[in-house]
């Protein structure tokens, strides 16, 4: 089973290619993509189990030894994230089946969905910086198509800006890779780390390149001050597409910051990681300010995506093992819970017929299950103890205290409170308040929409209640990040 690591990439890719042929056979498209999503969960869980028992897995593509060939590396962080991606992609796919509409389904929706998953999986598993760029492009080109899929006026308007921002950031990525190659002469992440750490004098040019990479990944991951494109573009597409974007796309940018700032650029942490900490604090602040200011339920949720980016990156910037374990745990929790919240808000907008808080109210009378699921998801998002957001935030704060970043901890606590305020406002005004619905199905029904949400909330509850089982995995991942030598030895096998 040496080829095990290629399957998370190959499976959605082959499914996507197969789905390109029978355009009008919607039934076949649905069945095949659902089967593939289930198989993907099985494969990624098996890889997770293997990595837990046998240590870091590597796969040399084409049999060329690294650093000369491309190598896929499944360390614990990458494998945890591929598993989470697989788990979140199935319910969103099921939600799309009952909400996206026949016209969109006929025009290759499922194929592009699979290509998006391919790109995300590739970005998590690759061990080569240029291959990371290519996987980013696979993911982004699929996302360009999904964001404009259907071609409504608003989608066309917002996707033009989204595509422009991402083309610019991809050009920056190429430039950053060019500089890095000029300085080090390699593209393999493990060898990059080895060469940069073996420098005897400090090299300011590497700090410049590190900041250039931060700009690139900050643009992908919506870090302050590079978040400006996100709120408008994530509210344009239909809920199912917004859910997969909100759950996965910014997280790939965050994962790349994890990887570059723990494995590669560790030569001048005083400057780079302090910069990261300050930007993380600003990101949290901007995210919650936006979330509190808006009256549109989709906008409120989208600004919460930005706030979560700040929480996770603060954990990375502490450079302590506790902080990193917390950041990893919070990242996994956030993928699951943002997927769930986007789906719940999507269902809410369908039943209320509007996305503005002022025009909805009393939804709990006809849709109690939706209401209480939303309430549970909000509690999990904020981090009320038995649910999944708690352990991650606790560890991030603990790591921050170890690093002595008390001001940012205070910002984070205040931001958490405002996240709670912004989301509970949706619950109070949307589900309670004056009843605007006369019958349950006045604007649309929740048929088939609640089961995927329930699945995600169950996973989130498992993450919270079963933290004893999940935390050791996050701790192993943090250990690898904290000691890049483990990663280097696994890849280069000296």
């Amino acid at each position, binding site marked *: 089973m040496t080829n095990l690591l290629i399957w998370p990439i190959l499976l959605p890719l082959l499914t996507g290619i197969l789905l390109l042929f029978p355009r009008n056979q919607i039934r076949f498209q649905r069945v095949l993509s659902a089967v593939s999503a289930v198989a993907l969960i099985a494969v990624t869980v098996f890889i997770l189990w293997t990595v837990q028992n046998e240590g870091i897995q590597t796969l040399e593509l084409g049999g060329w030894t690294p650093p000369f060939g491309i190598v896929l590396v499944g360390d614990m962080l990458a494998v945890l994230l591929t598993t989470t991606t697989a788990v979140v992609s199935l319910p969103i796919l099921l939600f799309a089946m009952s909400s996206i509409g026949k016209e969109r389904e006929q025009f290759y929706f499922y194929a592009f969905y699979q290509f998006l998953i391919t790109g995300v999986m590739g970005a998590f598993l690759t061990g080569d910086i*240029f291959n990371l760029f290519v996987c980013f492009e696979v993911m982004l080109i699929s996302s360009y198509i999904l964001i404009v899929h259907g071609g409504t006026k608003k989608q*066309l308007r*917002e*996707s033009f800006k989204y*595509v422009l921002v991402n083309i610019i950031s991809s*050009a920056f990525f190429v430039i950053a890779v*060019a500089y890095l*190659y*000029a300085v080090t002469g390699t593209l393999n992440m493990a060898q990059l780390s080895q060469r940069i750490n073996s420098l005897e004098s400090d090299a300011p040019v590497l700090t410049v390149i590190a900041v250039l990479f931060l700009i690139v990944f900050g643009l992908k991951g919506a870090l302050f001050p590079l978040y400006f494109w996100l709120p408008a573009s994530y509210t344009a597409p239909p809920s199912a597409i917004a859910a997969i974007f909100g759950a996965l796309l910014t997280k790939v940018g965050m994962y790349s910051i994890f990887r570059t700032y723990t494995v590669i650029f560790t030569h001048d942490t005083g400057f780079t990681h302090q910069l990261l900490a300050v930007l993380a604090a600003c990101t949290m602040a901007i995210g919650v300010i936006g979330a509190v200011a808006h009256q549109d339920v989709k906008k409120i949720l989208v600004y919460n995506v930005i706030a979560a980016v700040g929480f996770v990156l603060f954990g990375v910037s502490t450079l302590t093992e506790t902080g990193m374990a917390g950041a990893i745990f919070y990242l996994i929790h956030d993928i699951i819970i943002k997927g769930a919240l986007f789906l719940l808000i999507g269902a809410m907008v369908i039943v209320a017929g509007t996305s503005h808080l002022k025009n909805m109210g009393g939804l709990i009378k006809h849709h109690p299950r939706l209401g209480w699921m939303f309430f549970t998801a909000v509690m999990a998002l904020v981090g009320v103890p038995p649910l999944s957001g708690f352990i991650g935030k606790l560890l991030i704060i603990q790591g921050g205290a170890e690093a002595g970043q008390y001001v940012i901890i205070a910002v984070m606590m205040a931001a958490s409170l405002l996240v709670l305020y912004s989301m509970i406002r949706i619950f109070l005004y949307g589900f309670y308040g004056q009843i605007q619905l006369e019958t349950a199905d006045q604007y649309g029904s929740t048929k088939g929409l609640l089961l995927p949400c329930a699945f995600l909330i169950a996973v989130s509850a498992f993450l919270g209640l079963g933290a004893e089982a999940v935390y050791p995995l996050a701790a192993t991942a943090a250990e690898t990040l904290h000691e890049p030598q483990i990663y280097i030895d696994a890849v280069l096998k000296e």
Partner: protein
Amino acid sequence: MEILMSVAAGILFMGGTYLVLSKNIIRIIIGTSVISHGAHILLLTMAGLKTGAPPLLGLEASSYTDPLPQALILTAIVISFGVTSFFIVLGYRAYKENGTDNTENMRGTDSYD
């Protein structure tokens, strides 16, 4: 030679940035192409422009030019080619649907009342 090429790449980035900051859709698209050109030239320059034979083993030379950046550029070119063609079609559709090619008029104005 590297200095000259760096200056050329810088001029391309300057022109591209200027075009991207303008208001017309088609000028923005041309700007992104110019920036991609700059990035590709920079990739070639950064790997070193030392003279050597083209990387073909049939030519028996004492030294060859670095083949890796050429492969990287080839990859980056096809990606930016695909993205640019998509972007042109997207710009055309946005122009048709919104009835304007001026980005000032493409602002999101969501009104709720």
